[in-house]
């Protein structure tokens, strides 16, 4: 049975896994940058900045990722013709926007978990906003933010399968194509599942290692 599943079937799946990894790496990176910026904005001293950040976070979190991707790929070009992008960039933008909103909430929570006395002590020493966040608040907040962020990264691996709806051939889409051609959905999707596990489990291991290092 397994002998039937040759390299000609495996190669496109590996190629898809590689693109899934690429998607997750890029959107994880951009999402972290967006998330850090908007997480800080959520607790900014200036109220309109807080409101804008809340608007972004709540709008994105109130939508299925699927709708976000469909909107970016099919609807945006109708509104703004210059915003027509290939599948790859659209997929990365969509997943980054999604990740950014969730990581922003993780960052906000971690900042709020730092005792207020820490920022007060820094202020009392004459430290302004930038120094206070750079040296006192963020280093302590990051310890709290990393474990949930790693958890989110694992769910991002799985969420990345949704970009198959705009025709981007990552692991899920590759699996569907291969299974249509070889008429072996059971074997094909078993391999797909195994590859997803191979992608996400190391992240979980890293997370566990990191948490142990904290104590």
């Amino acid at each position, binding site marked *: 049975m397994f002998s039937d599943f040759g390299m000609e079937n495996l190669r496109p799946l590996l190629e898809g896994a590689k693109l899934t990894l690429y998607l997750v790496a890029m959107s994880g990176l951009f999402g972290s940058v967006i998330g850090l910026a908007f997480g800080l904005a959520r607790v900014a001293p200036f109220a309109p900045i807080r409101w804008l950040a809340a608007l972004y976070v709540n709008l994105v979190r109130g939508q299925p990722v699927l709708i976000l991707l469909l909107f970016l790929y099919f609807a945006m070009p109708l509104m703004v013709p210059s915003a027509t992008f290939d599948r790859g960039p659209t997929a990365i933008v969509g997943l980054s926007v999604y990740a950014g909103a969730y990581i922003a909430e993780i960052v906000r929570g971690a900042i709020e978990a730092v005792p207020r*006395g820490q920022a007060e002590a*820094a*202020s*009392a*020493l*004459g*430290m*302004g906003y930038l120094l206070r966040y750079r040296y*006192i608040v963020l280093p*302590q907040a990051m310890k709290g933010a990393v474990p949930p962020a790693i958890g989110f990264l694992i769910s991002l691996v799985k969420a990345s399968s949704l970009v198959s709806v705009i025709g981007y051939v990552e692991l899920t889409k590759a699996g569907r194509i291969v299974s249509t051609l070889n008429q072996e959905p059971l074997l094909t999707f078993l391999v797909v599942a195994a590859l997803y596990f191979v992608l996400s489990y190391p992240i979980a291991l890293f997370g566990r290692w990191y948490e142990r290092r904290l104590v």
Partner: protein
Amino acid sequence: MNPVIIVEGLRKNFGKLEVLRGIDCTVHLNEVVCVIGPSGSGKSTFLRCLNLLESITAGTVVINGHRLNESKTNLNQVRQDVGMVFQQFNVFPHMKVIDNLTLAPIKVAKQQPAQVRTRAHALLEKVGLTDKTDVYPSKLSGGQQQRVAIARALAMQPKVMLFDEPTSSLDPETVGEVLGVMKDLAQEHMTMVVVTHEMGFAREVADRVLFMDQGLIVEEGTPEQIFDHPQHERTRAFLSKVL
């Protein structure tokens, strides 16, 4: 007389609650002022208004000639000259003891790192923590953490030190070591405002004692006047409970 802190008509509301209802007070250079009073009397809020950790509802606070609640005042500049010690210590847990001391002088006051470190080592010796230089605060007792916090504030070479119930969250056996450091400071003529429940300390060290109740300074005077000959009924009632 050289005033370091001038407070006039200071009021502070939290929403509808009037916590400070018109405080007038001047602290002079080299003076040690202790603020006593029942909890909820506004004494901690008063202290926190002196470096604007609490915003001021009305009135003025002038520190070293700078009016705090004025938009052109550089608050961070003024705060460099005002050391503060908190009830909860608030040492930076992610930094070694020495880095707790050197961070602000290097990053805020932009002083030479080598000089700052020399001074920091001297301060740690002064507060009796030479052996804890490279330790993280989580390894220290409450009394040791509070002494780090005092040294951290002193590292900025402030002109005045504010203490917000510095011994209230300490184990009884470590209260003495912190009060000892504070007494040393007073003997070196550091200008200090100390909110405290340690009546023995106030009596021994203070030049002047303020008794606060319900958002007002009810009575002030030398320790002898306040502790031995209190004039106000409320002062007498408070002291009868704590002495």
